[in-house]
């Protein structure tokens, strides 16, 4: 019993110490896609010397929102990164826990690249072809069947006669969420959608369901690993954020989607079909409590970072168009909150 008492009092003492100590370091959680950009800004911010370097934890968009909305106070993070906008469910959670004032900042755009080894020839896919290659169930001759396609040429005779082999991100990934909504749901054929609905299922959910028969392989949250696998296997394909394509262009190249290859301009004006905005959210109640949050927002939204010639563009973030940028910069400076109803 003595041992347990000692242990508990030890913990209690530490809990007391840590609660008394105010946090003087910004805490950021959230998306692994925004992580590479946020870390660069944080590092540059820390070097200016006035504030400590923010601590950034890559928890995935969903995990970040859960931590962010858990409450107000220095034990909760100040900022969460997101590779999609905040969902209404998450807003409700925030409101329930007293996090009523949230500032939304769009940091830029990202294009999901569907890439393959540089050693295989250039190729062009439509969204429907990609959906047919990845889906759990597809429509063949007006009936829903388990995905029968084994080779790309089974889907369309213009595609190569090679085995379908796609490395996919796990369901917890924000990139997978974006891929689902931008490719799987959009590429889902009309026939399949109506068939899903006729069977009393939700079309969106069923369209996004991926096959589990070995042609689509889950490769984990590690995008570098996917790049290495693509480099060593010329028949394999995989998808990940644009920054990985930029950093590894000696090993991999992107396939065109609907005839468009990912490029800075294409992602910026959304003419590349799988482009999406990236965000971070700031808890307004923490401004003034944890030092440096306002200055960090200023640094992140500065032209030096987010602008077209900024250092984030160099590592693959696609900058915002100038009118959008101005709006975001004003929101950051004036601390404009979004409605959470």
């Amino acid at each position, binding site marked *: 019993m003595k*041992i347990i008492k000692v*242990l508990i009092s*030890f*913990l*209690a003492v*530490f*809990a007391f*110490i*840590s*609660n008394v*100590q105010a*946090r003087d*370091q910004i*805490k950021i959680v959230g998306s*692994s896609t925004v*992580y*590479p950009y946020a*870390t*660069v800004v*944080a*590092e540059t911010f*820390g*070097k200016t010397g006035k504030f*400590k*370097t923010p*601590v*950034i*934890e*890559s928890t995935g968009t969903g995990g970040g929102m859960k931590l962010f909305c858990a409450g107000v106070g220095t*034990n909760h993070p100040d900022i969460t990164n997101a590779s999609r906008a905040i969902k209404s469910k998450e807003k409700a959670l925030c409101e329930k826990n007293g996090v009523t004032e949230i500032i939304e900042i769009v940091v830029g755009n990202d294009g999901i690249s569907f890439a393959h080894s*540089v050693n295989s020839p250039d190729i062009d896919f439509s969204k429907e072809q990609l959906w047919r290659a990845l889906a759990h169930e597809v429509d063949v001759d007006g009936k829903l069947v388990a995905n029968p396609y084994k080779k790309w040429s089974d889907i369309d005779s213009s595609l190569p006669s090679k085995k379908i082999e796609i490395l996919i991100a796990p369901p917890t990934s924000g990139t997978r969420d974006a891929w689902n909504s931008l490719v799987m749901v959009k590429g889902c054929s009309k026939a399949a959608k109506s068939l899903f609905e006729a069977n009393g299922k939700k079309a969106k959910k069923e369209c996004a369901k991926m096959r589990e028969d070995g042609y689509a392989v889950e490769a984990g*949250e*590690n*995008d*570098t*690993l996917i*790049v290495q696998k693509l480099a060593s296997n010329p028949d394999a394909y995989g998808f990940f954020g644009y*920054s*990985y394509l*930029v*950093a*590894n*262009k*000696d090993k991999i*190249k992107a396939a065109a989607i609907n005839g468009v290859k990912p490029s800075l301009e294409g992602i910026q004006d959304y003419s590349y079909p799988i482009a999406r905005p990236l965000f971070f959210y700031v808890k307004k109640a923490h401004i003034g409590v944890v030092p440096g949050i306002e200055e960090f927002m200023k640094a992140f939204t500065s032209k030096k970072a987010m602008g077209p010639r900024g250092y984030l563009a160099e*590592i693959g973030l696609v900058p915002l168009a100038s009118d959008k940028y101005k709006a975001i910069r004003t929101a950051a400076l004036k601390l404009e909150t979004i409605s959470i109803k």
Partner: protein
Amino acid sequence: MTKEERIKKRYNAEKRFKLYGITSVVLAILFVVFLIHVIFSKGSSAFQKTTINVELNFTLDSLYLDPNPSKDDLENVEYYDLAIESLLKVYQVNGLKEEKALINLFSPDYEYEVRDFLIKNPEFINKKTILKLTASDDIDQLHKGNYPRHLPEDRRRINDFQLMMYDKLVEQNKIDKIFNNYLFQKGDSRNPELAGIGGALVGSFFTIIITLLLSFPIAIFASIYLEEFAPKNRVTDFIEININNLAAVPSIVFGLLGLGILLSTFDLPRSTPLVAGITLALMTLPRIIIPCRASLKAVPPSIREGALAVGASKVQSVMHHVVPLAIPGTLSGTIIGLAQALGETAPLILIGMVAFVVDIPSIPTDPSASLPVQVYLWSEQAERGFVEKTSATIMILLSFLITLNFIAVYLRQKFERKW
């Protein structure tokens, strides 16, 4: 079957059995050699960094300083102008685009490197000197031969102009490889050439100290009580079974415990060595109690009985005679338990240790990384320079683990008594 045939058959069976054994040992050694070869061949280059020689002229003018500046003055000077001008003299360039290409040959920290040099060596004011500034990771990887240069320009991260500058600099002997001090001094960074395991080393150190302080005394008292004083009944049997079970519980479960109790109930700060240390202490406890009890059990009963016979109390016989004899075993058990804790990643992920932390922690309640977590973080980075950094960190972690295990074996061999 004749007698001779049966004997022959038995001999053959024995030979086959030996062969199986040797094959398994050889296979195991091959795997280890292969693993170590891969890690060493990838990681050894990380202990060196590529530098570019830059001539600097620290005139008071270029620094906007008064004569005889104080240390404060030196710290507050803008070194940007001086640094940029010196960099641009390394190679003749025209136009902004080429200037940018030239500046990109250096790490983004050139300004701070110049500043740190002058603050350390103020006697160089008004003098010229040649400084080895850290090169960018692209040049670093190119110079170490890890980056292919015979690719078309659009598939390279270094453009043709930069490649030409690099070749000229090599010709003029301006590019060197020196010991990579940043690897041990600096915290994490997004620039591979500036990233180091300094923060992770300190974080791991704090974590292990807290684990040791918590788990060692508790484990010693628990094992002494259970082995020497506790009555043998159903309750103690139940406790014993549970200690053995706990030692086999996957480490990630302890991470969940840390998340649920330490972070949620006690509100301890996330991503800190304090929480990591407590979590790992819980994980290590049963793993230390088991060898401690074994080494106490190994002390022959005659020692206890001898002490009791000359009038020692139970506590005296245990503390004065049994425990000192069991110490080598308990120490080696503890060290092996700590070595396991040092290499643990899974529970740390749950308590938020997988974070980007640049500042080196100064107290256990500062956010921090740890060595295995640093390996995990760097293995996910897109930049090429992190590949060798990952392997180098594995090498350092392995060398710690091997040293700890070696100490454990040594203690056991040196002090263990046979009866």
